[in-house]
């Protein structure tokens, strides 16, 4: 049986900049030039005011752990148990991710713990943004 890998994204024209960014080790968000709203996931207009004048910028990569589950179900590319997490970025938006570099237990994974983005290459085209605890 072939080795099973995690499902990988198929970027669309509207999300290219995000996946280009992760390939280069950057977390890229978008900001509305009119109302300054920062948002995710990507789209070429502001979800708050509908302006098409938006810019891509490099985010800090800092985040905190917002919520998660620790899945015990078998999943391609994962060894259970593993956390499926949502982090809140310092810039405001939230995104789903995995938490790298620490035990996948409720004791270690404390809500609101500080995190930083790390980039894990999957293929030549796709690099995923994961998050690891900030040492301190």
């Amino acid at each position, binding site marked *: 049986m072939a080795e099973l890998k*995690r*499902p*990988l*994204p*198929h*970027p*669309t024209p509207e*999300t290219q900049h995000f996946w280009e960014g992760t390939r280069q080790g950057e977390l890229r968000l978008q900001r509305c030039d009119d109302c300054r709203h920062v948002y995710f*996931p990507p789209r070429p207009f502001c979800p708050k005011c509908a302006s098409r004048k938006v810019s891509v910028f490099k985010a800090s990569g800092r985040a905190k752990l*917002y*919520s*998660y*589950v*620790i*899945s*015990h*179900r*078998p*999943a391609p*590319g*994962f060894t259970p*148990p*593993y956390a*499926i*997490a*949502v982090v809140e970025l310092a810039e405001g938006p*939230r*995104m*789903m*991710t*995995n938490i790298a570099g620490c035990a996948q237990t*409720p004791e270690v994974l404390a*809500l609101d713990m500080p995190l930083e983005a790390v980039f894990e290459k*999957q293929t030549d085209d796709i690099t*995923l943004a994961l998050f690891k605890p900030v040492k301190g």
Partner: protein
Amino acid sequence: MKRKSVAVVGAAETTELGLIPNLSQLQLHADAALNTLADAGLKPTDIDGVATAGESPTSVAHYLGITPTWVDGTSVGGCSFMIHVRHAAAAINEGLCTTVLITHGESGRSRIGSGRFGASPASLAGQFEAPFGTMGPPTVFTIPVLRYMKTYGITEEQLAMVAVVQREWAGKNPRASYRDPITVADVLNSRMIAYPFRLLMCCLVTDGGGALILTSAERAKDFPRKPVYILGTGESVETPMVSQMADFTTSKAFRVSGKKAFEEAGIAHKDVDHLMIYDAFAHLPLYGLEDLGFCKPGEAASFIWERNTAPGGKLPLNTNGGGLSYMHSGMYGMYAMQESVRQLRGVAPAQVPNAKISIAHGVGGMFAASGTIVFSNQAP
């Protein structure tokens, strides 16, 4: 919408529930539809409106030999059938059709003739959630709950109690899949699925179906069964990605849909005798009780712990045993409405004495959508 003018005149589930390996998904729709037509004393040719999800209304209409003048294929998950009721009421009032059949059938366990799961890898959920190991609803629907629990100081024991109380109701229902009593300890000792969710906090996966027939309240008096009137309806959607919910402690779709239904019905919370809240997982009744306004934010777990929703309590909730113990085919909303209708016809296995107003509140996807129906057996 010209409200208070439409009624349920037919309601039935599939003959069997649970494991039905000898019927395809389409035939589960048909089995439920035929039972419902018999319940209403109608033939397929009497139906001129068809609404369904999971299958296309074209497939269902053609399979049953119906030529509709109105169809609705709204498919936003398990609450689609509540939304069909809402749309059907508007369509009947507008004269687009007179007699609507709403069907559900799902081979959730046997997977006979059913569709495939999973988002396209080019969809937003496919790009920004699926790569992180999401493996279906138990690992996705559950993600907001730790934030909810931290915000309000809710314990795992309180989450477990939701399943314990619903099992009490299921014990009164001969058609429930699981009927043996369970304790909080049993729930917390059951197999971990996705922390903090144990097996007994997750819904069943079964085969089954159900259907409803609606017509104008004026005509409803001429049918064999006691009419169940639609007093108010609501619907909304929020996001296809659980990670993008505006607030992990409350569902915007629940709040919008519930408020709309209460306003249309012109009722207060104290008027409600019986409540169904779609419970794919143990946290949903907590969100539902709060977002519908029966409890203040953070207080639903205590409300359930203190047995307000249990047999003998002041707000009987999920009296069929719910998705946790009765059955859950995948799109459970139809079964919640079936139980509301049974309660208001006075024929439920765990009958609430003198129930006059029942609410069925549904969720679609993972907090993605919502539909709410206020039913009454009193002519409006």
